[in-house]
């Protein structure tokens, strides 16, 4: 059935809503990659099977949604309409959940979230501190809709922003509204979205393209995947509105190849939108047409750079080129092209629906709205968090993230991935926005937040990121190709205890050259992790070089294990664990490690229950 007007869309929405009883029990199961990897799919099938067994199949809905964000506690299940939150649900728990919670409205205590501080259980989704501290706009529907069914999105108001733009606004008004909202590109650079649209609209030419950059590649960042997997229609609606605003009639979503589920959900959404006449020719009966295709990437981090992404869609090696000309004037096949990130597009429908003033009420003076961060590393609550821009770092890490596990001390948070830098503990009260982060030598980037504790070596982290950028450097320009290689060599040398006094200066010199002379963002920002750790943790570099010690006891080459004879009980656990038989000693006598044989694998350290194995 094709929708022929805005009224048809409203009628369809009403029809879908009428069919659905809001009080009908519904088991919403997170179908994001994190929960699936943890067995979420088996749990869903177990629910379906158990409901059938108890003759409840028609009386209870089972909903497989996109990512709920709280990956740490996966598989996550929410019982609607009450919003009862169950964590780490296993197939064995299924019959009890149905018997108690669905049938008798009783809680299954052991599946509830337990506050790590007070020890009290929390019943409802919205009371769990991880969710309570968030402002979920983009993720608002992620626990409520099945991403493989466009009907759910439409029922919750989907495509009403498109309809509003097409029937009540001119393209100029759409651009003005987006500009006024203060929305900035969520891919990392933070360029004002409305201005970018303006450039592409003003560029001469009849054929124009819209491209969605879904080549999310920063290690430790997965928000774009969750948006595409969980609510692909919200991204498509944003693209449609952008296309209408700039006068484009075709577009591409360039998706990272490692995200098969996102590709699958997007493919379905495109098919379903096409059947309803929300994509294709004469959308909602107007003379606006838009055709959307998916291009699957083939594994190259540099393709997240817009000119490299264009080359890749054209079928070439994905290498960047010098700008200008910018893609807004000369993009795909030389035509004006507007490229935005997934999260940027996902913001658009809300801005059109609720208005620029409402959107601008969240965030800071220069950075409006919300941003999704992926909170990972040494943190209790790994997951995706959506918060207003400008929120203090401390709130995200301690209130939402639950702090650092194992009683360890917080050391730094790395933001912006391989292009970003570290924010040390002294800046914990820094507001998270584009400018504040820039000032301390870090960046917003795509939103990766990797938390590090006292056991993380900052030289090793710099080396880790450099090995990533060096590997992903496309090789087109010399400063990036050679510079990243040389920096990596120096850093490797330092972590192996072979660093020399002048290495720090050399790193700074090479870093400055790579930053100033590289062709694209990948190279220009690649020295950031090194320069930022040098800025705040120079003493760690110096300890590696001068004292041949790793203060965090992380760099294997600089470690030595020994056994404290006073603490050792002679239980022999370490000697049995040692793969090279380097530990000797009689039962119930203090043991000794032979440092010549020792390969520093650390198994004795992990195995000892008496803290007798010492790292030095």
């Amino acid at each position, binding site marked *: 059935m094709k929708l022929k007007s805005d009224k048809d869309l409203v009628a369809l929405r009403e029809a879908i809503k009428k069919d659905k009883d809001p009080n009908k029990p519904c088991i919403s199961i997170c179908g994001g*990659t*994190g929960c*699936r*990897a*943890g*067995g979420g799919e088996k749990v869903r099938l177990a629910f379906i099977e158990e409901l059938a067994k108890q003759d409840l199949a028609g009386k209870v809905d089972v909903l497989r949604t996109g990512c709920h964000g709280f*990956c*740490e506690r*996966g598989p996550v299940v929410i019982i609607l309409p009450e919003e009862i939150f169950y964590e780490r649900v296993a197939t064995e728990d299924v019959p009890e959940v149905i018997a108690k919670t669905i049938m008798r409205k009783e809680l299954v205590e052991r599946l509830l979230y337990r506050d790590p501080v007070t020890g009290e259980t929390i019943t409802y989704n919205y009371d769990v501190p991880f969710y309570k501290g968030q402002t979920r706009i983009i993720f608002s529907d992620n626990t409520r809709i099945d991403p493989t069914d466009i009907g759910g999105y439409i029922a919750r108001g989907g495509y009403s922003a498109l309809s509003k733009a097409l029937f009540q606004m001119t393209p100029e008004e759409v651009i003005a509204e987006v500009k006024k909202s203060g929305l900035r590109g969520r891919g990392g650079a933070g360029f004002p979205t409305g201005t970018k649209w303006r450039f592409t609209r003003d560029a001469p030419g009849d054929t124009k393209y819209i491209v969605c950059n879904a080549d999310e*590649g*920063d*290690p*430790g*960042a*997965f928000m774009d*995947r969750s948006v595409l997997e969980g609510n692909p229609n919200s991204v498509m609606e944003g693209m449609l509105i952008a296309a209408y605003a700039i006068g484009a009639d075709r577009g591409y979503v360039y998706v990272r*190849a*490692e*995200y098969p589920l996102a590709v699958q959900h997007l493919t379905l959404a495109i098919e379903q939108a096409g059947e309803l006449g929300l994509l294709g020719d004469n959308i909602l009966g107007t003379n606006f047409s838009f055709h959307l295709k998916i*291009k*699957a*990437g*083939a*594994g*190259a*981090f540099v393709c997240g750079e817009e000119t490299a992404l264009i080359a*890749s*869609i*054209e*079928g*070439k*090696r*994905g*290498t960047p080129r010098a700008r200008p000309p910018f893609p807004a004037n000369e993009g795909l096949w030389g035509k004006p092209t507007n490229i935005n990130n997934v999260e940027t597009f996902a913001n658009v429908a809300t801005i059109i629906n609720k208005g620029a003033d409402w959107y601008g009420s969240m965030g800071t003076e220069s950075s409006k709205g919300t941003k999704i961060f*992926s909170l*990972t*590393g*040494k943190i209790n609550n*790994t*997951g995706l968090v959506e918060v207003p821009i400008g929120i203090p770092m401390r709130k995200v890490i301690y209130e939402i993230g639950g702090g650092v596990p194992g009683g360890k001390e917080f050391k730094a948070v*790395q933001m912006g*991935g391989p292009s970003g830098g570290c924010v040390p503990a002294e800046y914990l009260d820094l507001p998270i926005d584009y400018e504040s982060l820039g000032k301390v030598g870090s960046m917003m980037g795509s939103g*990766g937040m*990797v938390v*590090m504790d006292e056991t*993380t070596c900052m030289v090793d*982290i710099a080396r*880790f*990121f450099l090995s*990533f950028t060096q590997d*992903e450097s*496309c090789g087109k320009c010399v400063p990036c190709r050679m510079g990243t290689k040389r920096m990596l060599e120096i850093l490797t040398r330092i972590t192996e205890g072979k660093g020399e006094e002048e290495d720090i200066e050399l790193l700074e010199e090479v870093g400055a050259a790579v930053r100033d002379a590289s062709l694209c963002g990948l190279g220009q920002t690649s020295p950031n992790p090194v320069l930022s750790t040098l800025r705040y943790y120079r003493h760690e570099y110096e300890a590696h070089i001068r004292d041949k010690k790793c203060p965090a006891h992380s760099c294997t080459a600089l470690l030595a294990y020994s056994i404290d004879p006073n603490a050792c009980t002679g239980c022999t656990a370490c000697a049995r664990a040692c793969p090279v038989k380097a530990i000797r000693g009689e039962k119930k006598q203090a043991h000794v490690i032979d440092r010549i044989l020792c390969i520093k*694998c*650390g*198994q004795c350290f*992990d195995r000892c229950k008496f803290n007798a194995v010492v790292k030095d």
Partner: protein
Amino acid sequence: MTESIDLSKVDEILKRYEKKEASLIPVLQEVQSCFRYLPEEALVRIGQKLNIALSRIYGVATFYSQFYLAKRGRHVIRVCRGTACHVRGGKSVLDAIKEYLKIGDGETTPDYGFTLETVACLGSCALAPVLLVDEDYYGKLTPEKIAGIVQRYAEGGQVEAQV
């Protein structure tokens, strides 16, 4: 090693694409999903049909990390080397697999049983350190768990993913 391959499968794929440069990457992707790598004869045929020089095809095929020019193992182990896995000890897991299979990153065991790869991020950071064997995720790994996981695949049995 060279094996003769069924080029009619390549022709079948090429039929569905327009004869232009933009078709190259999707064609290579489909051909690879058919043969699990890109055999040389297939690249020659693609070049002839799409009218693209073989040197250019080779350039594209070697640029993207998802294309393989050599035959791969029956099982592919992908170890996540993302930041979250790194700070939770991902490297020791990788070292344990290298040691166990006696192959390096990107290599295949002589019996074509396993191919070992590293990926930048699997985006399953809550399970860090994590790896994928074919389509199965294994999370919260330690070096000691490696032998058990690899053995189950080596014995030919498909096992349930365990976290």
